[in-house]
């Protein structure tokens, strides 16, 4: 962290005079490639709504962890989210109902359970607000280290499994005929989303998380002709929105998460207008 602080001090950027801004910028520089990458597979696999549901289940896990007095409720939340993801995969594979219907069932149940547990015995819901709205400016060095570790794990996972995951997301039957264990691949990716979403939610909140998990790839998809451009643009859009949103929020005094989400929405609008250029 001290090296990062030293670099920030050299840069002639007034907003980086503050330690909380240095932390927030570093956290966003780690999160952008992390979510930019995951976003590509979430959008291709039509799991946007699912990642949103997982965010809610993570919040429920944190509430349950707090109630049971866990020292680190975030690990309780990881366990709950993974269980939620596995149960969802199981039910989806054995139900003939549409995936979005099953996601709706799980999402509303998770939210209801979270609020029920958090308010049990007249408890206040206010302390959980940071998980819903998030505040990137209050991210701690410990949380940044956790984000860095998650990023390293996701990059390794991506290098090893992205071809199989892509083919499974694009055409499961074709993937199966090429010897790819489709069910296992889908479950593995589902669990990976659950872990990443849950570990990130305490530092960034559900709002930034969902916008970063869907909008970068949705925008990149409008103008990409191949997987290389798709991944590259998704990561670049996430980086641009992260840095841009933080800067806008500093100078206008607005919420950083909302600014990031709005910039991503703007990028989507521009790329939507340009979508015919890709051919």
């Amino acid at each position: 962290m001290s090296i990062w602080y030293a670099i920030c001090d050299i840069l002639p950027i007034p907003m980086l005079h503050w330690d909380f801004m240095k932390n927030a910028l570093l956290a966003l520089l780690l999160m952008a490639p992390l979510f930019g990458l995951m976003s590509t597979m979430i959008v291709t696999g039509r799991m946007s709504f699912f990642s949103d549901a997982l965010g809610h289940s993570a919040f429920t896990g944190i509430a349950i962890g707090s109630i049971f007095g866990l020292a680190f409720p975030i690990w309780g939340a990881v366990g709950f989210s993974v269980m939620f993801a596995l149960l969802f995969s199981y039910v989806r594979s054995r139900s003939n109902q549409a995936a979005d219907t099953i996601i709706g069932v799980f999402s509303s149940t998770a939210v209801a359970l979270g609020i029920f547990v958090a308010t049990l015995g007249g408890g206040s819901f206010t302390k959980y607000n940071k998980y819903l709205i998030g505040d990137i400016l209050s991210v701690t060095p410990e949380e940044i280290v956790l984000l860095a570790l998650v990023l390293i794990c996701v990059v390794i996972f991506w290098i090893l499994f992205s071809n199989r995951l892509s083919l499974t997301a694009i055409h499961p039957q074709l993937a199966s005929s090429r010897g790819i264990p489709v069910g296992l691949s889908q479950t593995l990716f589902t669990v990976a989303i659950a872990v990443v979403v849950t570990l990130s939610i305490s530092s960034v909140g559900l709002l930034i998380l969902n916008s970063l998990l869907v909008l970068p790839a949705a925008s990149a998809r409008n103008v990409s002709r191949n997987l290389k451009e798709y991944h590259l643009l998704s990561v670049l859009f996430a980086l641009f929105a992260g840095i841009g949103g933080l800067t806008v929020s500093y100078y206008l005094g607005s919420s950083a998460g909302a600014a990031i989400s709005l910039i991503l929405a703007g990028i989507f609008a521009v790329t939507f207008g340009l979508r015919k250029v890709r051919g």
Partner: protein
Amino acid sequence: MRFSLHGGPCGHSCCLRVENVSVTIGSDPILQNINLHVHCGEMVALIGPNGAGKSTFLKTILGQQEYDGIIAFSEPGKRSKKPRIGYVPQSPAFDPSDPLSVADLFACCMSRRPAFLGLSGSMRELVAECLERVHGEDLIDKRVGTLSGGELQRVLLALALEPLPNILILDEPLSGVDIEGMENLMDMLDEIRKTYDLSILMTTHDFSMLDRYADQVVLIDRQVLISGKPETVLNSPEFSQAFHMKGGRA
């Protein structure tokens, strides 16, 4: 039930042997006592009205569906540990908005190097060679979603032929392809099976090409109604009953 590694007791060298295969989903019997032999270098067309169980049958051969009975593969003079199946799926299953080039599709199937990093020189050469087999060299950088029906079938065929399979299975390869494209595709399949002595099993709703290209036609409607030479099956009362009375596309 698992795939058997042994060949069949039929007179010819038998590549695929299906004996008394039944599939039940829930309490619904989808397929009942299906028997089918596909010999090496033979082209077999599987036809039947909508809901006859053709797709379920292909899924069963691909190992994606539980079944009762025997499905056995063999190669003359060889025994493979596991049958290599070249599968050409029905083309509309691809999302036209996917940012996926033809080269990416091959890389995802054949390369260990992540496709999102781009193709290595040797992989690009291999993809070009595969596409050359189906006269599709110029398609390598095209997006899969922008290909015409005929182009997509050729790309999927090239993919199914690498590595060279024991049997090639095509799900409705002629749907969404214009008349000229159909002839080109069937000529190509004919050339491929002769060149590689490859067995081909395909489902189709288009019967106009069967006389010229298929060695055997199998009409199913949850069970085998009739099988044999194209002219025998297409002129049979079972065929008329299955399609004319049930409103299928004859």
